[in-house]
């Protein structure tokens, strides 16, 4: 994933992604923030476990969300 043009930062409980090529800001909710951090820090499995522990969400739905977020992040990086 080419991360040259995007920057992720957590502000309080939420993260956001800034695309420094387009100026677009993508504000993430709490779980999406944890997932993005897991992807960027290569510890996605730990993050998934953390979400399953702390939030009321079933694993299949979570794994679908993870796949969607990863695809969206890859598309951002490829632009």
């Amino acid at each position: 994933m080419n991360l040259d043009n995007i920057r992720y930062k957590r502000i309080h409980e939420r993260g956001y992604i800034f695309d420094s090529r387009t100026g677009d800001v993508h504000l993430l909710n709490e779980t999406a923030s944890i997932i993005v951090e897991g992807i960027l820090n290569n510890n996605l499995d730990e993050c998934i476990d953390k979400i399953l522990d702390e939030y009321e969400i079933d694993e299949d739905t979570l794994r679908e969300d993870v796949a969607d977020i990863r695809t969206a992040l890859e598309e951002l990086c490829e632009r």
Partner: protein
Amino acid sequence: MRKIGLTGMSEKAPGIAVARCIKTGCPDVNVVAFGEPMDAGMYIEVDSSYVVEPYDIDAIVKISSAKGVSALIPNMDDDVEAFAESRDVFYEYGIDVLVPEPKIVRLANDKLETYAYASSKGITMPETRRFSEYLDWAPPYFLKGGSQGVFRARSIEEGFTISQYLMQMGEIPIAQKNLDGEPYSVAGIVYGGDVSELMIKKLKIAENGTTVFGVTVYDEDLLSLTEEFVLGMGWEGPFEVEFIRNDGYHLIEMNSRFPSWIDVCVGAGLNLPAVLTELLYEKQSEIKDRTYKTDVAFIKFPTNAITDIDKIVGMYVGGAIEWEKNNM
């Protein structure tokens, strides 16, 4: 002592921001303001201020010669054109000004010429034409009136009213079709066929077209398009080019001077007015500064120039103030 003169010192023009940039990047340079007594920038950010009538080149040359001002940066579109037409006069008096030839300035200042030029080069731009009461465009569309700014006409009646206002102000109303999309702007300097530039995304624009919130970005495609445009026309000196991104970049308009948001370049690490100052004084023979930091945001805010009433009266009566550091 190096002294540089600036015009466009009202709160609506970029001169104040340019002065701030020069003071930050070239602290040894003395900044001289040329303007009118009620221009806020005559009372802040500068070392001396002189009252001149608009486009009074003779007065600017006379004062510059007397006071040792050896370089000038015009910061209003009409000033750039007047300066371009008087380049020989400035050079005769040893005053450096980086502006293109008059016919090239008009390619930027005359929005119809900009449209014709862009179209001839295959650069997409929303249709632009002189407003007439027979204009059959569906609103909304934009009306531009030189120094009066940009207006959005949301109905046929509003378009007509705006055009009447602009004509009363002595401007020829120019209509431009609306194009939805994300607005961007590029400010830069062309010097000797070389370009240094900085880009922003406009995140909020006021009704009059002023950018009030923006962030620095970097896009190779926009950089290339801007360079192609300004170098192709033979530009020299400061510029701003505005775009809309909608399935690619579409040119909206060009301004022949720095924009009013130019001071964000200090925060981004590419102080373009300071770079221009060094080029004018030949401390640099070529543009070396090009890189800047993205993600730097700015928000425009109004403030007050605070001074003693006798300074303002003095400006009307005497036409000049040499500021001392404890004047404000």
